[in-house]
């Protein structure tokens, strides 16, 4: 071990120099440095670490709308989140305590401190909100919370011989100005100036003329300030108490810009374990609960609530659910007797609100999660409880060890706080750069898919990343070689996976591990965090418990040779938009882990080095995200018929398709009219190609505006043919209509035209066609999700892509798509369950024939929707209507696969078959 400790230092110093500038130089030893890794202070008792800091540049982009002065402390450079805080259940409290302890031990703390503690100089302003100027001037105090980082400071200080007050807090105090009469000890620390960019200025609340009275409730004067500040052990939040110079300025000071903070920052604060007020409020009134109950009651010690091993939260709305736990326990016990299967859920009415409760029974314990039906539909809830159970097992080994250890309680509180935030108000947590509420709606469906969103990459990039990860996995770092030190390495790297902006770009992990790790990341909201903000430095380290640890093989030798009990550790290192997850094994080939080892610097730095090495790929990844992908998509708005068409389509039944017309004799005059309107719609769409042809039809069609043919084939002849084939009878009438619609340009789509103009040469146009999934002349594909369960990945258009396809009804369509996919997937899950059952009892028992007459094995399910623009202002005319399908398909052979597509109704639906077969190259 000693040997390894020495290592750490070698590497550490490299690390703490600016690593960005020398990505290649990541393993040179330099002996003389006492600097430690930034995160080393945050390592927990059990070796766990959750260290997160945002990058410096992030502060500007993070709070775009807030004025610069109001940047609050977390836009500071370094912030540590560690689970200490959580354990205490209150933010920064332990830090403060620790700090106070240090001060006490150094006898810096005045004796009266303890007495005073309860009536510390808290803000008096709070109690006198309407104070007027005329009132006798009292001493008024304000508390300002700033973030200080002595690590940053030491360097500067050494260079410039500044005082800590200036370096740490950014407060300039000229001691020579002080009045002699007060004496050295009593000299007040008046703020004479603020250092630009210093914490005090950034807080926006420290004004020149204020007097610094206390630091973390320790009274300070010019005499002891340097000593007090030098006791700050590491990066932390510090409470500064100021005596206010001029109470008249109060009003300008007071409004702390809490609201100006973006929700993105709320997420960060939530992750840091703070209580975010505006997030909590909403949850208060919503009945939700998590309980872990024991079914085995000790009858001797009949204590109140003894069956509750854990529950969260304690709000009033949740109290009711807690009080009826008898129902859950009874049902669990009784229904199992009657039906012979575990109870999975029940539904209750609570204050006129329907609440679903999902059950998860393991051994003699029962895990319950209750959420309102309107927030989380039942099938979703059942997926969620399964995920929760799996994450907890991944983190703690078993539900019992998660819930029954007292010291876990605070961590679990934080865990479930995050969980309910995500479940009940995901839109508040995820705010992408785009204002669309895309994430909130999709998170519900996408988050519970048993897979990770995969980003397909160009081959070269893929290879580069693959190689970088393989290098890391080889663990052949110069001085880590076993020969060199003649001792076993600490860990074997089982595999790693790389995420960029939340998308999986490369994985060398077994499927189960990948899914577990992704679930862990998702739960801690890392994907949205990483995609929104550039991470300065993120290190997560914890012991994990794999789903299927290596078991002795069935071979006879295995009886003799027993697999050593391996332990597994998860290391996640984040840098900028990258997230590298590494799964390490101790035991086995590597030496055994003893106790609770903390993160090992060598591995952390190697991972970080890998990320630095991959910086070059970032550009091509961004390019990939920015470019339209394969297969390309259309925006729903391009298909909105103009209002004129809409009038006609209103008179006709929206259900009538062209299929009907071609195959059935026209029986009534009304249906003849429908026929025409239908065809006119069709031809109008094709119209831009008539005069111009080729890719410039979009440019020509600019006057038409709504000409919704995003990716037309550059072959007018083909189109013409197609049109004629489709409309044997209505060609003339449609010609007339065509003119009429050309005049009306109600819904221009600048994006569509602009893009066509800008970057679509004819050649590219052809390329587009090659990538098009749907048949026919237009690309009618709106959205898709392809899930491949064997590798645990799914492919869906990236957020960036969806954001590009902005429009008035497209977001609405995407929302509905995800909602519908959820219910389709529920049906598929039943089918899969059915399959499993059948596999269990292959022998033809009478039930399987019986089962066939129910819907259970559904392999394809499609739903047709209609949508029209929201906020349609025109009172006279009803809004235009666009019809689209959401189709899901389940493949069992050769590999289980699920596909969900959303496309325009106009396509002949055989195109879907094509789309299904393509399956986006996942099958290979």
């Amino acid at each position, binding site marked *: 071990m000693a040997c390894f400790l020495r290592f750490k230092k070698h590497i550490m110093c490299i690390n703490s120099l600016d690593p960005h500038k020398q990505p290649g130089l990541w393993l040179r030893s330099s002996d003389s440095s006492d600097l430690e890794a930034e995160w080393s202070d945050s390592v927990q008792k059990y070796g766990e670490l959750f260290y997160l800091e945002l990058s410096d540049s992030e502060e500007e982009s993070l709070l775009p709308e807030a004025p610069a002065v109001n940047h609050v402390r977390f836009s500071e450079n370094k912030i540590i989140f560690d689970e200490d805080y959580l354990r205490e259940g209150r933010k920064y409290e332990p830090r403060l305590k620790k700090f106070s302890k240090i001060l006490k031990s150094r006898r810096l703390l005045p004796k009266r401190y303890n007495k005073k503690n309860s009536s510390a100089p808290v803000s008096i302003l709070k109690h006198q909100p309407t104070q007027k100027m005329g009132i006798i001037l009292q001493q008024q105090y304000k508390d300002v919370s700033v973030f200080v980082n002595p690590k940053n400071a030491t360097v500067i200080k050494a260079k410039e011989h500044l005082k800590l007050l200036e370096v740490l807090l950014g407060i300039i105090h000229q001691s020579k100005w002080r009045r002699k009469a007060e004496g050295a000890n009593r000299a007040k620390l008046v703020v004479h100036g603020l250092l630009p960019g210093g914490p005090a200025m950034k807080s926006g609340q420290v004004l020149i003329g204020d007097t610094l009275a206390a630091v973390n409730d320790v009274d300070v004067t010019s005499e002891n300030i340097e000593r007090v500040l030098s006791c700050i052990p590491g990066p932390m939040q510090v409470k500064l108490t100021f005596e206010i110079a001029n109470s008249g300025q109060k009003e300008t000071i007071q409004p702390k810009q809490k609201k100006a903070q973006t929700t993105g920052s709320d997420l960060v604060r939530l992750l840091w374990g703070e209580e975010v007020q505006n997030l909590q409020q909403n949850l208060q009134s919503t009945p939700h609960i998590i309980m872990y109950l024991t079914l085995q009651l000790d009858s001797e010690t009949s204590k109140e609530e003894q069956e509750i091993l854990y529950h969260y939260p304690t709000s009033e709305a949740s109290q009711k659910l807690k*009080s009826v736990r008898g129902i859950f326990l009874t049902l669990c016990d009784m229904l199992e007797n009657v*039906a012979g299967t*575990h109870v999975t859920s029940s539904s209750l009415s609570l204050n006129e609100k329907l609440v679903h409760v999902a059950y998860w029974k393991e051994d003699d314990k029962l895990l319950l999660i209750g959420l309102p039906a309107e927030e989380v539909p039942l099938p979703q809830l059942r997926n969620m409880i399964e995920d929760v159970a799996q994450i907890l097992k991944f983190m703690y080994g078993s539900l019992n060890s998660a819930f029954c250890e007292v010291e876990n309680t605070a961590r679990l509180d934080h865990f479930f706080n995050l969980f309910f935030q995500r479940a009940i108000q995901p839109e508040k947590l995820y705010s992408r750069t785009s204002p669309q509420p895309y994430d909130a709606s999709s998170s519900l469906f996408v988050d519970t898919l048993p897979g990770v969103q995969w980003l397909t990459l160009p081959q070269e990039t893929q290879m580069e990343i693959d190689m970088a990860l393989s290098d890391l996995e080889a663990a052949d770092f110069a001085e880590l070689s076993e020969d060199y030190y003649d001792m076993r390495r600490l860990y074997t790297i089982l595999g790693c996976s790389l995420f960029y902006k939340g998308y999986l770009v490369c994985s060398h992990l077994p499927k189960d591990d990948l899914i577990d790790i992704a679930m862990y990341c998702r739960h801690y909201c890392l994907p949205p965090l990483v995609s929104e903000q550039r991470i300065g430095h993120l290190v997560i380290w914890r012991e994990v418990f794999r789903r299927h640890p290596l078991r002795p093989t069935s071979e006879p030798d295995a009886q003799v040779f027993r697999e050593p009990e391996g332990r597994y550790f998860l290391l996640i290192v984040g840098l900028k938009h990258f997230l590298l997850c590494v799964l390490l094994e101790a035991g086995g080939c590597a030496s055994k882990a003893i106790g609770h080892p903390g993160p090992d610097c060598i591995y952390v730095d190697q991972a970080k080095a890998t990320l630095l090495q991959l910086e070059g790929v970032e550009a091509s990844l961004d390019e990939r995200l920015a470019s339209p992908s394969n297969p390309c998509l259309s925006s729903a708005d391009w298909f909105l018929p103009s209002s004129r068409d809409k009038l006609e389509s209103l008179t006709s*039944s929206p259900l009538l398709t062209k299929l009907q017309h071609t195959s059935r004799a026209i029986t009534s005059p009304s249906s003849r009219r429908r026929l025409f309107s239908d065809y006119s719609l069709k031809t109008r769409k094709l119209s831009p190609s008539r005069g111009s042809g080729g890719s410039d039809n979009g440019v020509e069609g600019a006057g038409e505006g709504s000409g919704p043919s995003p990716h037309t084939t550059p072959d007018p002849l083909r189109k013409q043919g197609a049109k004629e084939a489709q409309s044997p009878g209505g060609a003339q009438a449609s010609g007339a209509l065509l003119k009429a619609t050309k005049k009306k340009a109600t819904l221009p789509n600048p994006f569509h035209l602009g893009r066509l103009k800008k970057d679509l040469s004819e050649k590219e146009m052809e390329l587009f066609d090659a990538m098009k999934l749907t048949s026919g002349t237009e690309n009618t594909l709106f959205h898709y999700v392809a899930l491949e369960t064997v590798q645990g990945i799914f492919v869906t258009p990236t957020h960036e892509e969806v954001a590009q396809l902005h429009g008035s009804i497209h977001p609405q369509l995407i929302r509905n798509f995800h909602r519908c996919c959820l219910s389709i997937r529920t*049906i598929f899950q039943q089918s899969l369950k059915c399959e499993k059952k059948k596999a269990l009892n292959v022998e033809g028992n009478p039930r399987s024939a019986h089962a066939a007459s129910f819907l*259970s*094995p559904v392999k394809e399910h499609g*739903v*047709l929707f209609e949508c029209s623009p929201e906020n349609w202002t025109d009172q006279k005319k009803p809004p235009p209507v666009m*019809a689209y399908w959401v189709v899901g398909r389940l493949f069992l052979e050769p590999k289980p696969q699920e596909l969900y597509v959303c496309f325009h109704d106009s396509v002949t639906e055989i195109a879907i078959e094509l789309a299904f077969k393509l399956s986006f190259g996942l099958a290979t």
Partner: protein
Amino acid sequence: MAEESAAGAVHLLCLAASSGVPLFSRSSRGGAPSRQQLPFSIIGSLNGVHMFGQNLDVTLRSARTEDSAVVWKTFHDSITLIVLSSELGCAELRLERLLELVFGAMVLLVGLEELTKIRNVERLKKDLREALAGFAEEMGSVFASLVAGGRVVVGTEGWWRLGAPEAVLLPWLVGTLPFQAARDYPVYLPHGSPMVPHRLLTLTLLPGLELCVLCGPQPPLSQVEPQVLERWWQPLLEPLRACLALTPRGIPAGFPLHPDILGLLLLHLEQRRGLFTVDLGGEEGPSPSARRRLLRSFYVLVTATHFPPEEKAEEPGCPTGVPRACYVVCGAAAEGPQGRQDPGAGLRLVAVQAGPRRLLLLVSARSPTYALRGLATRTLHALTPLL
């Protein structure tokens, strides 16, 4: 116990809400009435959990295990009905409707007053048991609006104005009573007149064709019989015979329907009438009972997940979330008992909604997916004059 009950058992329990005294219970297994009932302790706990919640202002509505479901429902704070079903595809929606119909049937037979103001539990028990002997069992295995045993061929305006429960229940009642040439049967109307009984007069016009009349204390049956039969029905003998020929197909012979259609269910949501048949499309494909089950499951699926329930169907202002059509393709995976090709493989089910009409079709595997909606729309169009 657990092993046996897995095979699709349904238990229906009726208890007095306040006292918890069991009024009656019925069980069926595999669609047939069964003697095997739930142990008393189970009945007690099933009712107990519900009552426990009630005391705390929490209403327990349903619970599910991996393959069965329980639904509780209390009517008029007086009668609690509990159904426990382990049939395949037992959806809460379906069980809830079953309970509503069961309560409707109880009102139909003994009146609401008797049920809400229970003075003599023992007497009520006796009444209910007698009245429900055949009735409840019939319903215990049949889903409400889909499979009405007797069909209403013609109804007066007034008949169609009957509320949902009695409109469904009266033909059933007629179907379950022992065969008689004429009946004078007192009924309460669960929706229209739950307190005051009416008389249901039935006259058998032809074997299998009965005339039902709801009336007040007058006229006596003895008068009605000669009057009505001779004056009104004698001249209509031929059309009546034609009516008989309609069953069981339900729609006129020679009506143009695509041969791929194996079964259909057409609902008119405003008139609350339905047309249902599985005797279409020839002999091949699944058996009629399997077809019925398929359509029934599909109906439950689309009503529970996609279309709004019938009562709220035509509310304006929910255009985006409500689908216009949907379809399902059944998997081919299920292999028959002796390796036979499963008759249910590849079957398609399609539903369309247009205005107040909702059509569900069972279509053979031959029909291509992309043509389903066209087929359904055409069929709906053709059926529109009928309903």
